[in-house]
């Protein structure tokens, strides 16, 4: 990390905390810890597609925890096209990767070039994981985090018409269970227990 940039960000966080009841810090980054390939979906072989690599770059926990140490109440990681684990640090949630709640990129295409193959891997392999994300509601009481509720979202990967794909909807039960059990597995090494209640994940710090 560039230490000057880090100091700038942390100073902004401290200033924001003075001016706010609650402050979030967000980063948009596509960095990984390894290059083993991306997770693409249940039952689908992994492949060299780093956009869905769930590993967490080494600087990210350092950065996230520094922002919390300086006053951030929530840290949210974006950029990577798939979910990553959740960590609770000093009573504050760190979402290392929230996935993509809206995904009409394939419908619209980059710079206006519609390209329905963008999410289709080699030999037609599927990438449903890119259409799986979450809405996380963080409950604070008296300034302390009391609960994180995780609502699985599915953005219509299985829709036949491109016009119907990419629109976020509450995940159907089978997909919700896939998302939550995967998030459990990703978060467990970070010391986070996600309890599944119906089709919702619950974290109680």
């Amino acid at each position, binding site marked *: 990390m560039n230490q000057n940039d880090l100091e700038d960000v942390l100073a902004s966080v401290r200033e924001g905390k003075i001016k706010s009841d609650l402050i979030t810090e967000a980063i948009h980054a596509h960095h990984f810890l390894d290059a083993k390939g991306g997770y693409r979906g249940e039952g689908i072989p992994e492949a060299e597609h780093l956009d869905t690599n769930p590993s967490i770059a080494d600087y990210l926990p350092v950065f996230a925890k520094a922002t919390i140490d300086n006053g951030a109440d929530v840290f949210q990681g974006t950029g990577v096209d798939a979910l990553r684990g959740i960590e609770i640090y000093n009573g504050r949630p760190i979402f290392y990767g929230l996935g993509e709640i809206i995904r009409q990129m394939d419908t619209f295409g980059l710079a206006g070039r519609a390209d329905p193959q963008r999410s289709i891997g080699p030999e037609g392999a599927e990438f449903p994981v890119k259409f799986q994300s979450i809405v996380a509601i963080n409950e604070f009481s008296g300034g302390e985090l009391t609960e994180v509720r995780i609502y699985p979202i599915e953005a219509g990967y299985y829709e036949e018409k491109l016009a119907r794909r990419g*629109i976020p909807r509450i995940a159907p039960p089978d997909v919700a269970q896939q998302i939550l059990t995967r998030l459990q597995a990703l978060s467990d090494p970070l010391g986070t227990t996600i309890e599944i209640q119906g089709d919702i994940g619950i974290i109680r710090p």
Partner: protein
Amino acid sequence: MLSDSGFREVVELIQSPDAATGNLEGKFIDGRTFAGSRGGSFAMNFPTAPSIMPGALIRTRKWNFCASNFAQRLLASRNLIIIMR
């Protein structure tokens, strides 16, 4: 798009807490019932956020990795976005 009950459920979920934050780099292409974005790159048009969060306050900070490829006018809509109702 809000006529889509599944999508409406998600919007209601996002609207349910006191504050919501998100990275609005995605695009909505439906312009009939939802003020989504139209052309361009990784950026959602400004009208989109208030469509999701009425009365939203949008604040922006430094540009980021992807935004460096695109026009300055888009930066404000795709960086750190804080939406407060």
